[in-house]
């Protein structure tokens, strides 16, 4: 039976609450190679960053803590030969690149993740309300998202930066969330619209479930993999905006991050000076992080949508 095949592949088993019979592990869609590879590499990166912070002197991110313009180990730059004291080299203010990366990566990733989470939460509330309730609620939410998408992001960023100059971790995440909720709202609204007429929603109505329970207990669990993929996509989007903002010099300078390092490198003409390690290492890390998040997103899409899987 075709229908049954379809349902069997939805892959909700792992998420289900205790007490339901487990499906045989053979057809578990969560065993998705892209998802697994992406998660593992990203996990390794994060673990390296956190473990590294324990073993590497974090104060090396401070200005003047190391010799200036030192290349990575084994390389030579302007009569200086890289050594193991600073394996990834230093920048022009005597900051250790390894320390910058170890401190900066979790910081940038964390802000991106938190802001994506905030954005997704708003997106869930707005998207479900707009899609399920429709009418005026839909209009108001639409107005809100259209309006905020209309205003140049740069304007908002510059202004907020001048209002809260040394935005900390959560302030920055909150600020980025301003740009992170419209897309989930739109996408979820469409999903909810198509799910609204599902038979099991009808049944829940017949069972006397109030609207919020239908939205969040009946519909949302089925969107779980989809929501997680929205979250990873949102995280990479927020990390990109964050890095973009920092590269502009608009971010908080208080905590070293990948974007601030790139901003310093660009301002100091690192490319021209041939200090490839200074801009190259943060860039490669950004690319790897982005690719991992992309793999996870694509993998999760495949989990939530069986048609996406390779045949």
């Amino acid at each position, binding site marked *: 039976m075709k229908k049954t095949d379809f349902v069997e592949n939805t892959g909700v088993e792992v998420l289900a609450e205790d007490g339901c019979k487990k499906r045989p592990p053979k057809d578990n869609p969560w065993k998705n190679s892209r998802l697994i590879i992406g998660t593992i590499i990203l996990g390794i990166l994060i673990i390296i960053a956190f473990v590294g912070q324990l073993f590497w002197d974090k104060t090396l991110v401070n200005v003047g803590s190391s010799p200036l313009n030192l290349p990575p180990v084994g390389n030579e730059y302007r009569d200086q030969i890289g050594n193991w004291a600073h394996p990834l080299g230093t920048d022009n203010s005597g900051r250790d690149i390894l320390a910058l990366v170890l401190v900066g990566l979790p910081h940038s990733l964390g802000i991106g993740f938190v802001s994506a989470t905030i954005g997704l939460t708003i997106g869930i509330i707005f998207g479900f309300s707009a899609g399920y309730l429709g009418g005026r609620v839909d209009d108001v939410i639409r107005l809100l998202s259209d309006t905020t998408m209309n205003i140049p992001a740069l304007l908002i960023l*510059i202004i907020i930066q001048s209002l809260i100059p040394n935005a900390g971790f959560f302030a920055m995440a909150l600020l980025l969330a301003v740009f992170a909720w419209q897309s989930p709202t739109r996408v979820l609204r469409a999903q909810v619209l198509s799910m609204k007429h599902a038979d099991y929603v009808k049944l829940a109505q017949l069972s006397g479930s109030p609207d919020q329970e239908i939205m969040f207990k009946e519909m949302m669990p089925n969107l779980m993999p989809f929501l997680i993929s929205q979250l990873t996509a949102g995280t990479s989007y927020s990390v990109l905006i964050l890095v973009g903002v920092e590269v502009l010099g608009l971010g908080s300078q208080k905590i070293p991050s990948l974007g601030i390092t*790139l901003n310093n490198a660009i301002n100091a003409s690192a490319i021209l000076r041939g200090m490839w390690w200074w801009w190259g290492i943060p860039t490669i890390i950004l690319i790897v992080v982005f690719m991992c998040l992309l793999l996870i997103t694509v993998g999760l899409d495949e989990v939530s949508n069986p*048609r996406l899987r390779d045949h």
Partner: protein
Amino acid sequence: MNGLTWKYALHRIGIYLLTILISITLIFVISRAVPGDPIENMWRQLEMQKGQIEGVDLIIDHYKELFGLNEPIGIQYLKYLWNTVRFEFGVSFVHYPTSVSSMIGHALPWTLGLGLITTLIIFIFGNGIGAVFGWERTPKFIKTIIPSSLIFTSIPSVLAALFLLSIFSKNLGWFPLAGAYNSNVTQGWNWPYIASVIKYGFLPVLSILLVNIGWTILGMRAMVVTIGGADYVRLAQAKGLKPFYILKKYTVRNALLPQLTSLALSLGGLISGQVLVESIFSYPGMGMLIFRAIREQDFNVIQATSYMFILITATSVLLIDLLYPLIDPRITHGED
């Protein structure tokens, strides 16, 4: 069932006008939220850069008066609304007495040119690649190659622009370092001018393209995959139609409309994302204008340029919303 109805159109236009009103109001509020007085800041900055200016207080007072900044904020707002609907943007504070309209008049064509070409290429190639990426019959190795084209998506546009500049202009010398056309050619309809515009615009276009195309590819891929499983596509497959024909006629065709909407929605972002690329290539577009205006708190310029962006984005979204039911009869806007 219903197609485009008057009620729906009026409702959409109502939302459109309301969106614009709220947006421009927010622009007014936001641009004044920055601490400090623009005229004061500007002259103090000039003084610090170019030496003390005696009588600077007189100048500052004079210009505040001239630009109406001494009036109550409510009056300023009403005047602003009235002027904005009439497309009267006044003069730039910083570039006084240059009128904002003439500044936009000089910059907008370049930005539109750059923006439209990149948008067009992103739409055609992004959706093309995305369709191939999402198609179930695409060979696996191609599906493996495509994600690598997204590498540029993961770095800020500034960095991408700097890379391209450093490789193609600095090291290889294939493209000029800055500007929009060669000063030796005459502006107008002649081949040397057009060739030079293309040559100077190539790298800026490429930078914006590489950074933005990834999102379109990913979006299209998801659309193709979703639609690929829809009943009518399954039906077409059952009818024995050729897979590529199905991809072209059924899947892509139906995926393009939502993609068009996303494009319209991202238009504003695309244009303002151009800002930094323009400044790196010293391209005389709106990007430079808005970036500087925001930094210099040049209210009239901020308001006018933002208004342009708002109009472009909101209008394209409106048009697509209105065209949708005409193009796709499955979309209805009835009450049921």
